């Protein structure tokens, strides 16, 4: 059984067809990349998995369980974390607080013990902070630890958002264009991190990415989408050699 199975997924916005009978499956432990021109429906797919959008038809199974039956706030609890194409951080909070919010689903103590800050609450807070600190270490964010997001440059925010997603210790990580807005060096770091996240943290990664160098460097398999339809699926080399894909990117009519 695949980790994530998408069956005949269909999404429309008014008359616009954003996804058309999309089928694909992501295996445990792989780095699966979705590419496609603007408006292909990549982010839409992420938003359906996050349950922000209700699809028109089709189903999504995660470890055999139908995701569409769950509300959006229940998705992270299944072990699915994500980042956003346009960065959705908690702007008024510090980097550390953002990391800690990433651990929200890991909270164990109840409201009452927090109100009294019982030893159990203190222990849990310390454990969360320990974990957050580990992740900031991993992503070289220590220097920004106590800064508010509103004061950080774009590239750093992008990495903070990755960190926040990692803080929840996900099994499946959805990254929507992690390299957009990063410079060449930061993009190279990102490639290393993506590998490390899979190899060291054991997360499966579903990636949306435009930067083909990054795609080639990290992906096990690539799916090309155009106007909501799957064009090609295979290794990075196979997909970039595909004629239909080239046509879609160059915008010629089929």
């Amino acid at each position: 059984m695949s980790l994530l199975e998408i069956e005949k997924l269909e999404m429309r916005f008014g008359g616009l067809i954003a996804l058309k009978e999309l089928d694909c499956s992501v295996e445990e432990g792989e780095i699966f990349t979705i590419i496609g021109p603007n408006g292909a429906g990549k982010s839409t797919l992420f938003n359906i998995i996050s349950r922000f959008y209700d699809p028109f038809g089709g189903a999504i199974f995660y470890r055999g369980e139908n995701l569409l039956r769950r509300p959006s706030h229940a998705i992270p609890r299944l072990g699915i974390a994500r980042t956003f194409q346009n960065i959705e951080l908690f702007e008024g909070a510090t980097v550390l607080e953002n990391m800690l919010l990433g651990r929200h689903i890991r909270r164990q103590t109840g409201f009452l013990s927090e109100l009294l800050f019982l030893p159990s609450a203190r222990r849990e807070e310390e454990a969360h902070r320990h974990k957050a600190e580990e992740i900031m270490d991993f992503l070289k964010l220590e220097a920004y630890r106590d800064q508010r997001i509103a004061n950080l440059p774009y590239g750093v925010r992008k990495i903070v958002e990755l960190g926040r997603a990692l803080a929840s210790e996900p099994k499946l990580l959805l990254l929507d264009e992690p390299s957009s807005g990063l410079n060449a060096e930061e993009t190279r770091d990102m490639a290393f991190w993506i590998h490390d996240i899979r190899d060291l943290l054991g997360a499966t990664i579903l990636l949306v990415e435009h930067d083909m160098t990054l795609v080639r460097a990290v992906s096990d398999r690539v799916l090309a989408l155009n106007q909501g339809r799957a064009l090609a699926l295979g290794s990075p080399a196979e997909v970039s050699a595909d004629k239909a894909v080239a046509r879609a990117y160059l915008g010629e009519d089929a």
Partner: protein
Amino acid sequence: MRALLKTAYAQDIRLFRYGGTGRLVCGLLFYAALLVIAPRGFLTAWGACLYALAFGIILLRRDSQDEGGSAAFWYGLLGVALLSAPLLADDYAVSQLSFVLTYAIAGIGLVLLSGQAGQISLGHAAFMAAGAYTEAILHNAGAGLLVSLPAACLVAAALGVLVGLPALRMRGIYLALATYAFAFIVEEILARWETVTGGNQGLTMDWPRLVLPGVSYGFESEREFYYLVLGVFAAALLAALNLMRSATGRAFQAVRDSEIAAKSMGVNVAAVKTTAFTISAGLTGIAGALYGHLLFTITPEGFTIFLSINLLLMIVVGGMGSLHGAVFGAIFLVVLPQLIASFRDLLPPALASQSGIESGIFGLIIILFVLFEPDGIYGRWVKIRAYFDLFPLYRKGSFRRQRRTMASERDR
């Protein structure tokens, strides 16, 4: 460098980063016990000062060499001053101080709701009213504080759940209007349901009683009641601080900053908003109960939209980024009308006799704060302190002005 930073994370969750909480609490409790045990007149103003000095030097100043100085030291002095106030000040001043602390309790509730969770409310007068009327009814029926105060909290909190419902669908100005409408309904009910609320005549209540199994203690004066208010305030403050340093407080912040990101982190946005309204209403209900005792007579006119606006004004002026703001705002709310009254004599008589002058000045002050100091008095205080700390290095840009949002206008 890293080792230095890494040790800091256990400190972050302390109330005082550089320690001293335990000593602070012990010292204050000891002093409170002294006040209770010592014969009347034994502890005079001079005694209080002496104690404060000794307390400060022995218990707290010990670690003043620590980086950042000892915040606990200053709060300790403040605590001694608050505990000593009834020894030093006259009845009137003590009752004004009780009003400050009572407003501050409601202010804490509002800071949690508006500053922390980003939800606006123009309905807090209704929670005050719910608390005050519940307290009055139970008190007059002979119940002790340990029953009536929690009941006042619960009734207000239940109303808070109700008001939280529109918050699940609305935000910003629409939420303000919905909460306002709710407060208006409550006000009408208070005026019309005469058998229970006494209608426009209202209800009267005297000082409360503390009934424990075996013992019964009746508060008898302004001064004694002040200690009750102080105790409740301290408990509310501590509870709020605890919430803000744990997952619930962070979830509030998440909902304020980005609902969509909050959801994607597994925060149940609807539940968090409801919780925020419930806690805020509960605290305000407690404040309302104390407020009722301070006023002696409560009528629907005491709980109109003007009270809601005053409460909101309090945290806007005080600063809703921090619980300090609630306290600064409460001081402001009590002191300003008196300042206005005393300045009235200086104004030309034609102007001074105008009735709306007080609300006018209040309004003007809100506008000035929103325009020039969105972080409130507390924000200004932080800046002044930074100026002296950094002295030759302080530059205007040291504090970049941050966009202060009520709940995010973005959704998705």
